[in-house]
């Protein structure tokens, strides 16, 4: 038997299952979609086929995506996702900070509370949000006691953004927690000792040194927000649909796979752009890396 010390190729054996998985369930299907995005519905015997697709190399799908109707939806998806991400960051930073500075015996419990929503299906959680926000929901009944409302809190952008913040919060808290936890406290003490106020210390030392965590969190929240379709579908109104809903519709009710594929790829390119931005930031940052 050959020793792994002499024949390093044996390590490829370990890589095989992962490689197979990625190939069979990611690269190949993605390749299909890529080709499909340059195709159109086949015409058989003068009739547009329901199932057959002709890969003709056309760019019409991509051109169609730049139709003002879709551009508007893409633009809306971006600002809704950006706002949701910003709210996530604003809420998650204090939470992550609080967990890091909590007594050690409380930390596991607090982290568990952050992860706990993952144990429940997303669909059920979203329906639960409907119960909270609807006209006769919990929020409105509480507001009713003090003589306010009822307000329309469902089927609008507010509901979508709230839903997205709620769903993706843990993805922001966890990378932030990881960086803040590893941040040497003596940096903060040194800043205070040198005469900086708590606020100055936060802005000039804590935030720059935890920037890699902030950027990871932003990426982890912004990308899935951009592609989300369940939350805007259930919580949003007719005008709050996002690009994810449009894509979903192409593959299902509209039965236009080539156009759905083109939109998917455009969304993916936007994501690559965001990742490139992260790379640019992290190259210049000297903080704690994640």
């Amino acid at each position: 038997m050959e020793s792994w010390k002499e024949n390093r190729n044996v390590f490829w054996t370990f890589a095989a299952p992962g490689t197979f998985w990625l190939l069979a369930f990611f690269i190949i299907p993605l390749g299909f979609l890529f080709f499909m995005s340059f195709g159109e519905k086949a015409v058989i015997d003068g009739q547009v086929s329901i199932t057959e697709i002709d890969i003709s190399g056309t760019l019409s799908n991509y051109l169609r995506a730049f139709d003002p109707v879709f551009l508007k939806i893409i633009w809306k998806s971006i600002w809704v996702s950006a706002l949701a991400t910003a709210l996530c960051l604003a809420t998650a930073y204090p939470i992550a900070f609080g967990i890091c500075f909590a007594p050690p015996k409380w930390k596991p419990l607090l982290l568990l509370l952050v992860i706990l929503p993952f144990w429940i299906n997303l669909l059920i959680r979203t329906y639960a949000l409907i119960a909270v926000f609807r006209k006769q929901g919990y929020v409105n009944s509480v507001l009713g006691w003090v003589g306010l409302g009822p307000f329309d809190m469902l089927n609008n952008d507010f509901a979508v953004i709230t839903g997205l913040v709620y769903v993706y919060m843990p993805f922001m808290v966890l990378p932030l927690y990881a960086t803040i936890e590893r941040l040497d406290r003596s940096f903060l003490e040194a800043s205070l000792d040198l005469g900086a106020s708590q606020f100055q210390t936060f802005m000039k030392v804590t935030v720059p040194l935890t920037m890699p965590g902030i950027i990871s969190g932003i990426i982890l929240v912004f990308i899935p927000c951009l592609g989300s379709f369940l939350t805007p579908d259930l919580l949003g109104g007719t005008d709050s649909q996002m690009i994810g809903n449009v894509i979903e519709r192409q593959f299902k009710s509209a039965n236009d796979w080539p156009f759905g594929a083109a939109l998917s790829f455009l969304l993916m390119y936007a994501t690559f752009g965001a990742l490139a931005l992260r790379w640019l930031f992290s190259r210049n940052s000297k903080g704690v890396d994640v």
Partner: protein
Amino acid sequence: MTEPIVSIRNVSKKFSGGVIAVDNISFDIDQNEFFALLGPSGCGKTTLLRMISGLETPTSGQIMIGGEDMALTPPNKRPTNMVFQSYAVFPHMTVEQNVAYGLKVTGVAPDEIKRLVAEGLEMVKLTHLAERRPDQMSGGQRQRVALARALVKRPKVLLLDEPLSALDAKLRDDMRMELTRLQETVGITFIIVTHDQDEALSMASRIAVMEKGAVQQIATPVELYEHPKNRFVADFIGKVNLIDATVTGQKGKAITCDAKGLGKVELTSASQVGSAIAIAVRPEKLKIGKTEPKSDRILKLQGKVRDVAYYGDTSHVVIEGKDGLDLSVNVQNESREGGSGVERGQKVWVHWAPEDSIVLTE
């Protein structure tokens, strides 16, 4: 007499786990002193330093700096600056930005900052590295940054937490001299925390020896070494031979006592008859002879050489006496040939003058 710059009054610190880190300490530090807090790890010296800086709050007691009670003053408002053990030089700023940080956040005018930073960098000889980032620097250079960053603030008191412990031996010697020089030029009170007695002895003008949260003795280095107050101080500062003895007679200031391995000896002390004392004597005060010394006045004993350790400039000889008494003797290796002049297993006489004996009653 001038007012003390730092005054510590009945300060205690109890941590949440019930650990008493600092136990009712009181002492004053004078203007312009190079003061050392010396003790083994866990003796509360760092906690005390952090309480002076304001990063830790005393459970009880009062800390005055420049005559003002600091109880309600947060660390960023205190006239103290600290050089951290890990240096805590900000990794996302250049050397220049690090040094300027403390001035910038307190709103010093830009021209003034520029001048002070240049001066500070000059002081620690880092002018040529102003644009560097800390991750491109050695530990010694980072420490200079931390030092400059604290000194440009012109604090009344500079606090240094184990400043030399992370440096290698050669660099440590240089930095030790550098710190002494800086303290003399800037004229700021330095308080240094260290567990290294050599560091404290060679740099400090006064030393507080701490153990288990309490101050054992505060004195000048010479005083601490030659007149330690108790066994802990004698043992912690330098090497010492401790010989247990019982006082058997007293006449005025002279006592006779029965010492382990020595028999009946006469010494000068004010101890009570019957009390247990320890005779402490430093290894370099002992002499080794091949024949019995003639004088009756001196303390002497015969023993066998058990071990000789050669250190170049000196040799450390261990002599085994009667009743299980072991004595360490430092011998200067004065000539190139022959070393310490004794060999393992040899029978020798050890003797010393009675005035070199320190009588310890606690």
